[in-house]
C-alpha cells in the first residue's frame, strides 16, 4: 500500500511538472502544419504540384506535421486553431475556414479551369479491357454532357463540350470501388444513370484509391475510382479515363490575417523551412 501511495504521488508530481513545463510553450505565431496521410490522393497531388519533395522527388512533408485521414477532421482542426494551415479538396471547402490565394490566384472552379490556379488533380476511372458493355455505357454517360454537368454542379471541374448521351437499353450490374474523394460525385452519377437505364444496377463502394485499383485488378469490382494518377504497376493492368479535375484549396483559420501565400511559401511551410507566420 505504501508503495502504491509513493507511485501515485510520484506520478502526480510528474503530471503537474509536465503541465507546468508545457504551459511555457503556449501561444505564439508558430505555424501549425496539418497534412493528409501518406498515400492519400489529395496529399499525393499536393506534394507533386507544389514540389514538396526531397532530392529523389519523394514526398518530403515534415514529419512533425499533424496527420489526419479525414477532410472533416482537417476542417475542424483548422477552424479551431489560429495558427493552423491545411489543404482540402475544393469541393469540400466550407465557410468554417479560409482558403488562401495561391500566388495571388483565388481557389475557384473558374481559375482551375482556365489553368491559372495550379493546385488541381485528376479523378480517374480504371478498368480492365474486359469491361462489360454496361460498364462502358456508364463511362460514356459520365463523359457525356449530362454526366459532366453533374460533375460541374458538385464543384469539380468537368469537360466543356461533351457529347450528348442517349440511353441504349443496357442490362447488367456495374460495380465501382475506390477513392472516397470520387465517391460523393459518383453517387450522383449513379443515381442519374440508373434513372435513364432501369436495366442496369450500379453499385458504388468507398475504400480509397489504392483499394479501388486493387479491386479492379483482381476483379472484385468492374471499375476502380482513383483521385490520383495511376501508379506504373496499376497502369500495367488497367486502362483509365479521367472524368474530372478537382482543385485543392490551401486553408487557414478565419482569424488568420494571411490571405495570400506564394506556392514557394506553402512549399517551405510543408518542408518545415518556414515555421512562423511572422517570418513570411
Amino acid at each position, binding site marked *: *500500500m505504501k508503495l502504491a501511495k509513493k507511485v*501515485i504521488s510520484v*506520478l502526480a508530481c510528474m*503530471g503537474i511538472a*509536465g*503541465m507546468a*513545463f*508545457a*504551459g511555457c*510553450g*503556449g*501561444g*505564439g505565431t508558430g505555424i*501549425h502544419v496539418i497534412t493528409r*496521410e*501518406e*498515400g*492519400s*490522393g489529395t496529399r*499525393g497531388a499536393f*506534394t507533386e504540384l507544389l514540389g514538396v519533395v*526531397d532530392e*529523389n522527388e*519523394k*514526398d*518530403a512533408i515534415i*514529419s*512533425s*506535421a*499533424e*496527420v*489526419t*485521414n*479525414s477532410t472533416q*477532421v482537417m476542417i*475542424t*482542426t483548422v477552424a*479551431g*486553431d489560429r495558427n493552423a494551415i491545411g489543404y482540402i479538396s475544393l469541393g469540400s471547402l466550407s465557410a468554417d475556414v479560409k482558403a488562401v490565394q495561391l500566388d495571388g490566384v483565388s481557389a475557384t472552379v473558374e481559375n482551375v479551369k482556365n489553368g491559372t490556379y495550379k493546385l488541381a488533380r485528376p479523378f480517374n476511372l480504371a478498368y480492365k479491357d474486359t469491361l462489360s458493355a454496361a460498364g462502358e455505357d456508364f463511362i460514356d454517360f459520365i463523359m457525356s454532357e449530362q454526366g459532366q454537368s453533374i460533375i460541374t454542379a458538385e464543384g469539380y471541374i468537368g469537360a466543356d463540350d461533351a457529347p450528348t448521351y442517349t440511353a441504349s437499353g443496357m442490362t447488367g450490374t456495374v460495380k465501382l470501388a475506390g477513392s*472516397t474523394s470520387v465517391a460523393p460525385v459518383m453517387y450522383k452519377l449513379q443515381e442519374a444513370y440508373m434513372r435513364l437505364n432501369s436495366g442496369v444496377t450500379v453499385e458504388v463502394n468507398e*475504400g*480509397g*484509391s*489504392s*483499394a479501388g*485499383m*486493387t479491386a479492379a485488378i483482381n476483379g472484385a469490382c468492374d471499375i476502380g475510382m482513383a483521385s490520383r494518377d495511376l*501508379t506504373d*504497376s*496499376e497502369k500495367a493492368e488497367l486502362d483509365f479515363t479521367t472524368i474530372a479535375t478537382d482543385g485543392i484549396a490551401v486553408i487557414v483559420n478565419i482569424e488568420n490575417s494571411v490571405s495570400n501565400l506564394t506556392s514557394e511559401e506553402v512549399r517551405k511551410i510543408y518542408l518545415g523551412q518556414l515555421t512562423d507566420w511572422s517570418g513570411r
Partner: protein
Amino acid sequence: MTRDTVTARVLRKDLHPRGGISHRVTEGVSRILFLLFACVSILSVLTIVLFLLVQGVPALSEIGVTEFLFGSEWRPSADIYGVLTMVVGSLSVTAGAIIAGVPLALLTAIFLARFCPAPFYRVLKPVLRLMAGIPSVVYGFFGLTVIVPILYNVFGSGKGILSASVLLGMMILPTVAEVSENALRAVPGSYYEGALALGATPEAGVFSVVLPAARPGVSAAIVLGIGRAIGEATAVVMVAGNQPVLPDGLLSGVRTLTANIVLEMSYAADLHLGALIATGIVLFVFVLLTNVALAALRHTGRQK
C-alpha cells in the same frame, strides 16, 4: 450472473434427476452446435493470424526486421518504413490512459462496491454501462471538439499524448471500473468485518484490507484496460495528431500503431500495404502479451 446460471443448472438437475430421452437428444445436439460455434471463433483467429503472417512477413523480410522495428522514420513514398515512433506512441498513449483512467476507475469501483447508496447505484451503474457502449468514433469526435480545444486554449497545442491519454482514460474507465467492482465484491465480507472488528475505520478497512485482497482481479481489470487502450484506433486518430515522430513532451503529437494502419490502409499499395500489415503483426504481438499477462494474473488469482 455466472452464479445465477450455475444455480439454475443445479435446480434443473434436481427437477430432472435422470433426464428424459428427448432432453438428452437436445443436450447432445446443442453440445455439437456449441462446439461448432467455438470452432468457428478459433478458426477465425487462426485465419487472421495466417493472413497477417502471409501478407506481412514478405514485406517484413524485404524491409528488414531490425529496420522495421527500430527505424524511427516512416516515409512510405520514399519506401522507408520504421515503426519505432509508433511503438513509442502506442506505449506512451496507453501509459497515459492508465495514469488518467485507472485511479478514477478504481475509486469509482470502490465507491460502487462499498459506499454507494442503493438509489444512486441504480442510476450510476447503468450510466457506466452506457459509457462502455458509446461507439469510439463518438468519443473521438467528443475529443476533437471538446478536449482538444480546451487543451489548445490552455497550452497552445491541442492534439498529442495528453489529449489522447485523457480521452483513452475516459474510454477505459467503465471497463476497468466494472471488472474491479466485481473483484471487490468477490472479497469475502468477513475480511472487511474483521478489519472493522480490529478497530479500522470503514475507509481503512476498504483501502488496506479489501482492496489488497482484490488485487488479482483489479490487476486483471487494469490489463483489460491496457488492451482496450492499445487497440483503440478510431478515437485516437482524431485527437493524437498522428505525427510519426518521437514525442518530446506530453503535448507532442504521436502516431500509434493502430492509427498508422487506420490512416494509411485505404490508399496503400504494394510494399506500403505489406508494411501496414506488418504493423498489424507488431500490434498483434502487443495484444498477445497483454492477454498472456491477463491469463497469468487470473492464474495467480485462482491459486490464492
